[in-house]
């Protein structure tokens, strides 16, 4: 049961062929079996989940997530369940209310199964900066699941949750989805209530779902945005799709490129108009992102009511960098001007194309403890930060395996045009025939 999709489970629950307690028990059994190897969770809420599953009342029209076990990234406040942000500093912090997104999901029937591991205060690309130890990639436990929403991704890929919610500042949903063979969605900036989520960079942060298939991601996306989408037909004829040359040039592995090209060929065969384009140098977008993230994080953490002496090395480095940037005369204005230009370029580009397609990451999941220099670690966000800086919606979906590890493809759409993104993603998913089947070794 823990390997099923939301849609499949919903059908079985609606027909009373299974009950929520059985679904929850199946996922908890999976956690018992795999959590030692995966470390997806900081807190598992087993007893509360069982009680909640028992308390759910069946009705003729069940809400879309009724009885579905979910994980929430541990920077999302949950009433009466500790919320640590991956830091020992907050190890005993008990929120007095749940985040808006947690309440919305609960109202849609979802059952909280646990709080997922993350890089400390969501700063990192591997979960290795978490004070609770790194999570492991269910496809190969020697490797990272990505970050900062790595625990959320690992939980779903391993079957330790049916879906999860993470947060994305520069790619923290999409990069873990790419590494773990999942679908992740970063909604259009500002379309999901973020109250009760610990911020990292308020002008960039967005929560979103990590799921096993495009259909499940569409279900959760509609719940958290409160916006209905029409997802049929899953046709791509007439769609204008841009392929940024610089994004494909960033990929060194020919096997990854071949998979991405195959997906593009399917779209072309379906009648999509494909055009290669030049886009603003990704090196500029990553630099802009690092500066904005560091300066905003400094502002956020300076206001936080806890001591900062015990923050981790990665976070302290970024805060020092943020403080240094803010001291440079007129630099904040330069940064804003560059960002404004980038947004305008993206808006103009999106008037000509329905979608931008490219790889999600520059390579496959790297090994735990690889000790990459920060500059190389930052490259894992190279292809995702454009959507973050411009507020565009973006989705990552798996398109196949290279060396037995998943490869992700990213779609970006115009603001508030997620429907187009989901339709094309469903088409690619069907054409590429990717099946989620990680082995926990």
């Amino acid at each position, binding site marked *: 049961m823990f390997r099923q999709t939301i849609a499949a489970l919903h059908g079985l629950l609606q027909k009373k062929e299974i009950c929520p307690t059985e679904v929850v028990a199946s996922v908890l059994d999976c956690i018992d079996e795999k959590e030692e190897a995966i470390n997806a969770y900081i807190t598992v809420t087993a007893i509360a989940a069982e009680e909640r599953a028992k308390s759910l009342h069946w009705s003729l029209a069940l809400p879309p997530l009724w009885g579905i076990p979910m994980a929430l990234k541990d920077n999302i406040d949950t009433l009466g369940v500790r919320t640590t942000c991956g830091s020992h500093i907050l190890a005993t912090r008990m929120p007095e209310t749940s985040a808006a997104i947690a309440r919305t999901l609960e109202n849609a029937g979802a059952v909280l199964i646990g709080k997922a591991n993350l890089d400390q205060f969501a700063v990192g690309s591997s979960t290795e900066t978490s004070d609770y130890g790194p999570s492991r990639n269910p496809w190969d436990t020697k490797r990272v699941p990505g970050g900062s929403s790595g625990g959320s991704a690992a939980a779903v890929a391993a079957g330790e949750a049916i879906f999860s919610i993470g947060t994305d500042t520069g790619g923290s949903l999409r990069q873990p989805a790419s590494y773990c063979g999942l679908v992740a969605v970063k909604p259009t900036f500002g379309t999901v209530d973020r109250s009760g989520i610990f911020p990292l960079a308020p002008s960039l942060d967005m929560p979103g779902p990590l799921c096993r298939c495009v259909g499940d991601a569409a279900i959760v996306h509609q719940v958290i945005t409160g916006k209905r989408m029409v997802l049929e037909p899953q046709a791509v004829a007439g769609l204008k799709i841009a392929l940024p040359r610089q994004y494909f040039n960033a990929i060194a592995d020919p096997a990854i490129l071949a998979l991405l090209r195959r997906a593009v060929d399917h779209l072309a065969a379906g009648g999509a108009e494909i055009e290669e384009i030049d886009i603003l140098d990704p090196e500029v977008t990553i630099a802009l992102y690092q500066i904005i993230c*560091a300066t905003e994080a400094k502002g956020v953490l300076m206001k936080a009511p806890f001591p900062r002496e015990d923050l981790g090395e990665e976070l302290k480095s970024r805060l020092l960098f943020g403080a240094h940037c803010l001291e440079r005369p007129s630099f904040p204005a330069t940064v804003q001007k560059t960002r404004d230009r980038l947004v305008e370029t993206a808006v103009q580009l999106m008037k000509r194309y329905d979608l931008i397609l490219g790889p999600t990451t520059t390579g496959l999941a790297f090994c735990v403890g690889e000790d990459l220099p920060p500059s190389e670690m930052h490259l894992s966000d190279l292809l995702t930060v454009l959507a973050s800086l411009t507020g565009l919606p973006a989705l990552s979906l798996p398109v196949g395996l290279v060396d037995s590890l998943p490869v992700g493809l990213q779609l970006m759409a115009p603001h508030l045009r997620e429907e187009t993104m989901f339709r094309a993603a469903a088409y690619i998913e069907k054409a590429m025939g990717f099946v989620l089947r990680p082995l926990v070794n």
Partner: protein
Amino acid sequence: MDDADLRRLAKEIGFSLSDEEIDHYRQRLLYFLPYIETVEKAGEGKD
């Protein structure tokens, strides 16, 4: 950035740096500092 600057910024943020840490963080900042030049160059273009 010299030692005094690094210590001052750390103090402003709310932590202190030992002598060993000063070198370590200076090395780490070297990875970040080129981003400033990249954005300054990009920002030099016309509006």
